[in-house]
């Protein structure tokens, strides 16, 4: 099996074209106990995130001066892959991912605002189908916003690969296993800064700009989707508190958001119903 099939002018195995993201669905405020929480689906990768804090540093031994201590914990559910197995928490691979995730969100959180305090972020991969890291970053961003933690801007992550000369965005698990260089980028899309970048294989330098551009474009697209989802969430929350009128969104946007909402409720009963596109192409 190749990354690109030979028909339809080079479709990917799941029917996407190179520059197309998987379908993204997300929801904010899914828990009530945490200060902020979010759930995101990128295709079949599903991640739950919860944020606690800012609160005083628990472990007094750790001295933090001037900035906030960010504690990021990444884990995968027992049932998250096809094969069921218990995953030890805190093994090397997990702590490495946790570390990188912390690095990604640290770039966006205004750490100087809450000195001598800590923020705990927990993400759990419920279902893994490629791009776990990316979905975790995106979920964390949503949860941080839900928690009202001041951020410079969203930090958004997206992966990209290369098939022949065609860059591919948002790599699924199948595509990960088929080989090819897998570039994961966590970026601040508005300022165009890159927070974390990781490459799984050797890639010739000549190709890097193209793949990187592709990943950044993916980040920007995801950013737009997350942004819409957050605004929609705020309308809902605000509406419930009778503050709805304070948001001055254009009529059109409101309608669109309404449609999205309706459709989201329906889709659980009938998967095959056509969805209104959330992805900007």
């Amino acid at each position: 099996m190749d990354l690109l099939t030979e028909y339809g002018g080079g479709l990917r195995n799941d029917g996407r074209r190179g520059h197309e993201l998987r379908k993204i669905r997300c929801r904010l405020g899914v828990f009530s106990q945490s200060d902020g929480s979010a759930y995101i689906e990128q295709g079949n990768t599903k991640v739950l995130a919860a944020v606690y804090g800012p609160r005083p540093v628990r472990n007094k031994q750790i001295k933090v001066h001037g900035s906030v201590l960010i504690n990021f914990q990444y884990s995968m559910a027992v049932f998250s892959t096809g094969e069921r197995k218990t995953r030890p928490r805190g093994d090397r691979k997990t702590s490495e991912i946790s570390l990188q995730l912390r690095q990604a969100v640290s770039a966006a959180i205004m750490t100087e605002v809450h000195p001598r305090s800590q923020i705990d972020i927990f993400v759990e991969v419920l279902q893994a189908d490629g791009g776990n890291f990316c979905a975790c970053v995106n979920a964390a961003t949503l949860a941080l916003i839900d928690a009202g933690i001041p951020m410079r801007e969203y930090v958004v992550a997206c992966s990209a690969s290369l098939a022949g000369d065609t860059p591919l965005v948002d790599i699924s698990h199948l595509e990960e296993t088929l080989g090819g260089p897998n570039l994961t980028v966590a970026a601040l899309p508005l300022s165009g800064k890159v927070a974390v970048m990781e490459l799984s294989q050797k890639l010739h330098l000549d190709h890097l700009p193209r793949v990187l551009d592709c990943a950044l474009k993916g980040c920007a697209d995801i950013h737009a989707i997350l942004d819409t989802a957050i605004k929609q969430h705020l309308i809902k929350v605000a509406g419930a508190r009778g503050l709805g009128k304070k948001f001055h969104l254009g009529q059109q946007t409101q309608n669109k958001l309404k449609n999205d909402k309706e459709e989201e409720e329906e889709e659980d009963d009938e998967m095959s119903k056509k969805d209104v596109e959330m992805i900007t192409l």
Partner: protein
Amino acid sequence: MLTSKTFLKKNKRGNVLKIVREHYLRDDLSCGSELCDECDSKEAILEKVPTSNSKQYTVPHYLLLDTNIILQQIDALEEPTLCNIVVIQTILQEVKHRSSSVYKRLKDLITNPNRKFYVFVNEHHHETYVERNPGESINDRNDRALRRVATWYEEHLSSHVRVILLTEDVRNRDLATGEGLLSCSIASYISQLTNGEPLLDKLSKIDAAVETSVKDSLYPLHATPTEIHAGIKSKTFLQGSFQASRENFLEGQVNCEGYDKPILVQGRDGLNRAIDGDTVAVRLLPEDQWSAPLELVLEDEGNMEDDEGGEEGKELMKKKSVPVAERRPTGQIVGIIKRKWRQYCGILQANPMAGSSRHLFVPAERKIPKIRVETRQIATLSTQRIVVAIDSWPRHSRYPQGHFVRALGPIGDKDTENEVLLLEHDVPHSKFSDLVLSYLPQMPWTITDEEVSRRSDLRHLDVCSVDPPGCTDIDDALHCRPLDNGNLEVGVHIADVSHFIKPGTPLDDEAALRATTVYLVDKRIDMVPGLLSGNLCSLRGNEERLAFSVIWELTEDARIVDAKFCKSVIRSRAALTYEQAQLIIDDPSQQTSIATSLRGLNRLAKILKKRRMDNGALVLASPEIRFHMDSETHEPLEVVAKKMRETNSMVEEFMLLANITVAEKIFHEFPDNAMLRRHPVPPPANFEPLQHAAKRQGFELNVSTGKDLATSLDLAVKPDNPYFNTMLRIIATRCMLQAVYFSSGMVQQSDFHHYGLAAPIYTHFTSPIRRYADIIVHRLLAACIGADATYPALLDKKASTALCYNLNYRNRQAQYAGRASVALHTHLFFRSRVQDEDGYVLYVRKNALQVLIPKYGLEGTLFLRCDSPGVSWTYNEKEQCQSCGNVVFHSFDPVTVQLSLDRSNVQHEKLVLKLVRPVIDGYSVPSVGNNTQDDDVDMVGEKNEAEAGGTEKEQGDCDQPETKKRKKKNKKNK
């Protein structure tokens, strides 16, 4: 815009996994018709108004093909008659899954713009995707998907152009008709065509008739797949590959995994329609019914009409009482698991009934049964070599049924026989397609400054190449110069083929498929198009070329201080032949930089060679010959043995050094994916014949390690028989296993060893023009030094294992084809000659002597017949000798034999050996003298004429031990 749909898929990987994959449906996929203005017109391939040649369907129409049509009728589809065809993705995937060869041929059709094949992506089209219903089989679902596409096209094109669904599946046809679609079988469609006549011969004859009554059946029923599966699970059946006997058409054996001895199968019932190469299920008979192989040559003399006959079969079945000791496990084939049919070359045996269109086809390969074909062109075809494909083998038919594919040319013609040879060895040899050629660089080609800036500029170095005369594909060039610190710098520069062949392009795919350039006696089948092999890649003298260089710093005693790798630009100062290089080295008056460079190389090479020999590298021997051809008729004029010069071994040593250095480097960087080459240590049992043969001559060979073997071979010299040592080495070569390519992640590091070269790690780097493995190694090395990018397949263990498998297979086939070509030319050479030659007995057999004739590098069988009075041969198994009266033959004894060609069988001409000396009354023949022809063969060895086509250069890579010579002469007893 995209819509998403999730579906479930279960995969088995040890335990059952539930795999969920997303499946996106789109609305931007084109229907591919020029008629349509809704869809993307860029992709439109199908004609707006297709002309209809059908008497039945006069409306313009497109054809929609079902899987069964493609799999069975690919020969007919390749005829340019049918055009405007829609192939849907579902079917394409099914074809790919079922037969990779048909898939490849279909892909060729699809890329051919004249044929107007369009691939419609139905599985991702939002209006044609169908979900599998609960309880519905995959096949039914796919049939439904096909009908859905047909319906969609009819609606989409508003029936301006109709769609005809071609399928052999009656049920599918009925359902389609029920849904208001046009549908028919391919045979009925073609029969209604005004221009369909030539297609009819090519139609595959699938006997639709269900198994006829038991009375008519000649063969037992095959077990169903479910029964076979259950049988294998319960160990009542064994699975293995069927190997037909060359001598007896009613005998064969099945090699089963997990069963150490091959299982013998005999008779029509036992073979039960298995054809050589098929994977079969076999049932072992109870031990009291076991039998032994018949020591008989049985040729199938049957012709068309005697279906009921087959007397010899019945006789065979009458079991003679076989001594228990000789009995072998015997079984009966109960079912076919996988057919391995291919296309076969051969000739037609005309039906004795004049005017009949049904004939028998006799394949050139003796292991393949005769095949029934139907053709109306018997008059023209009976003198031709033709190609036939098998379609089916019904129970009531004595022979399999097939159809005519194409004619190759007149029987006995050299070009035709070459073609047969290539086809029978599965050597891809068609012209490079336009698609492939379109990936070649534009001419005139120059090296741009930009390209130079990316490379090391080595044009100032005095590089030269040394090759056999007439070589046009120069892979390698060398240089050597002293460094300031007293060490020497040696460079091996290899043609940078991977610069021109980018991964994943059709050019690359074609080269990967061909895997190697095949050298026949009078012909070279290139792996890459001539523009590359003979020009742009070839490191010609005084031309700037791109190269991949390995540059060492060596001490005076040839120890490596440092090795560097770089992509470079070089300008070879001279393309020398081995002989020219030798002359330059030997002529002290030559003091040019090339001359000093060559002398330096030569000196280092001798040190390297000595070190290699001390490490236990083997010097093996195989009779190597070449033909001198008449430049006009291209008939072989004479045969001479190849000559080795010091310069041959000079080039060889540095190629080996480069290969080993590169192997270490790529293995270090890519421990899991490096493409390497290993030569396994032969099991000790392989050496038994060699040890026995040597022992009878009073030599004890130690075979425990390669080094021991090398040393003891060196010591085994008989002053009175100078050829003795060479013969020992020839026999030793046949004890070896084949060297193979492998991916380093798939084999334990301890098994990387190259036995023949006594190297712990080895690969092929130095001949990328003629070997695909070298291209892969180039790419790996380029990735190591950051000169090029990797790509998924390069680092995918599975893909590289599959690639290695193909490379090994093609290499073997290329070797066999090369030998068959030598055999063919030997035959052509002896057509007009009867000659006496000196030879040596290589092996003593039960009824024959295997005689080696050094002059022709030829091995023949001298049958020891007892048909004349007073002649009787006694075979002494213990002593391995044959005696007749007071004449005794042992291995290595000199003999004189008379060579001539027996042309009684048009398909299988054979060389006949008759004994001349020692004289045995009533058996030996009188000498004919050595001058039947005017030319004196002995003289020619010294002359140096252009080697035909630059055959087999760089013997240095002699890591290809000859396996058992395939030139098996026909063993015909009594």
